[in-house]
């Protein structure tokens, strides 16, 4: 049995269904609107509906053969992700940029260099490191380490990250944005050199999934 993990709700799920259906693998939800169960019209293929954030882990563990999720989530949640999963196809939707944003009123901060200097002064004056709210801990930390930003700390934020600055639980944020509207509405601006990752929805294959059946299914999806 080939297991395919698909995000369990929202636009991402619908677009994933459309993508597979357009390639001859019809997918749909089954049961009631609220029930997390789905159906795929193919022998020997099972649809597994999961939170997009859990799909990387399930792929790494080999409990699903294929999975659709954001490239941001795979890179953030899996160490050495290229060894654990492979990218099969970019699905052409779910585009978002992972960036760092600070209050628009910070007229002295436009770049990472500025952020680093501001963090140094902030720590001296306020007695703690400059806090950056995010749920992408690995990606953000690796990015800031590679540039050499110091005197910051990451604070976890699993939702409404744009509000953390106003709520005084962080001084800056690192989050995904597509249009930037939510950032602007919350009086934040993007640092000009802080594009950490351009993410989109991708079909991944687990490195532990090596069967010929999966090879055949992937050939079918690619029209081969």
């Amino acid at each position, binding site marked *: 049995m080939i297991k395919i993990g698909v995000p369990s709700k929202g636009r991402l799920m619908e677009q994933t269904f459309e993508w597979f259906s357009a390639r001859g693998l019809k997918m749909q939800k089954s049961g009631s609107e609220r029930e997390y169960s789905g159906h795929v019209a193919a022998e020997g293929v099972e649809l597994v509906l999961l939170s997009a954030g859990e799909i990387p882990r399930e792929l790494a563990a080999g409990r699903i053969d294929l999975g659709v999720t954001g490239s941001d989530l795979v890179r953030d949640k899996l160490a050495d992700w290229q060894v654990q999963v492979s990218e099969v196809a970019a699905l052409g939707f779910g585009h978002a940029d992972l960036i760092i944003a600070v209050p628009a009123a910070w007229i002295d901060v*436009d770049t990472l260099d500025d952020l680093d200097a501001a963090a140094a002064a902030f720590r001296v004056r306020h007695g703690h490191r400059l806090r950056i709210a995010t749920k992408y801990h690995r990606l953000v930390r690796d990015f800031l380490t590679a540039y050499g930003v110091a005197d910051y700390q990451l604070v976890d934020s699993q939702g409404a990250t744009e509000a953390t600055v106003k709520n005084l639980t962080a001084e800056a944020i690192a989050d995904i944005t597509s249009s930037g509207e939510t950032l602007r509405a919350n009086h934040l601006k993007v640092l000009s050199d802080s594009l950490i990752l351009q993410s989109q929805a991708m079909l991944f294959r687990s490195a532990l999934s090596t069967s010929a059946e999966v090879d055949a299914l992937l050939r079918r999806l690619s029209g081969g």
Partner: protein
Amino acid sequence: MTQKPAIRAEGARLFAAFQAAGAVPVEADILLPAETLLDLYGEDIRARAYVTTDPLQGEMMLRPDFTVPVVQAHMAHGADPARYCYLGEVFRKQEHLGNRPSEYLQVGFEVFDRAAPAEADAEVFALFAGLLDGVRARPVMGDIGILMAAVQGLDTTARRKAALLRHIWRPGRFRQLLDRFSGRAAVPEARAALLERLATGTPEALISAAGPMIGMRAVEDIAERAAALIEDAGTKPIAAPEAALLYDLLGLQAPAEAALAHLRGITFMLPSIAPAVDNFAARLEALRARGVDVARLPFQAGLGRTTMEYYDGFTFSFDVEGLPAVASGGRYDALTAVLGQGRSIPAVGGVIRPEVLVQVRA
């Protein structure tokens, strides 16, 4: 891990040797309050250490090294001078698949002594070299103190020196700043635009035009940095010969005696390094007296810049191809001041990794 008994026996042998060298054995908790370590090392340590949550004590960390708890214990109730040794597990997350262990033994030796730093440096290095005699490992030493002294002596603003010193442990960023401060790199476009904008009004007016104040970073913080940026824009570049000397120092690699001769040769152009170079000379003399062949011992001025940011003087390691260093250490005077709440004591020490030693011998 079939080798564990052999590794533990190796650790015990080294631990006994450290005691025979006059060190008092000390214990440290495995579960340490995370706050002190996070405050010292920042996010880097969170990526490398196991952090867990205790329902009563808050964030705790599995011991990532012994230095901090040993220094804390010494600052709280230590004799002066003191020599300590320890043996136990440390825990480090591995971010890459492979066979690097995330739990391994460290056996260490630390000297807290005000009297003669050069003697203490040589004592630690010679002890380690003796214990590792015959082991296929390449000894190398360095001195972060010389780099720091060179930065402190630059003919530039206190702000620029502070920025360079703050990044002395981040070679890439340090170089980027030095390139900018010495005029080798052009002012980035974003900075030029920022300066133009700052010139169009008072910080307060620009801030209120830019957006509402949100968050803890206040108008004064922003105005202060804006003023600093304007001051910096008017600062003359670090002179080319001075910058060249610093670049030369960053890349200096030579046998220790030859490195000393080179440093002596450039001291007249960088007089601020004279005391640090004298320390280096005294250390070499003390090492020679202990039978270390300093004519051949490799020296790299920047050794230890990329590890945990606390070494501020002598550094050393015993490197093994394809494995982590079998031993490493250095001087961390400033760390004792940070942890000593107003008090400080010169300190130097190092650790050996018995598991690497067993692998090298196999």
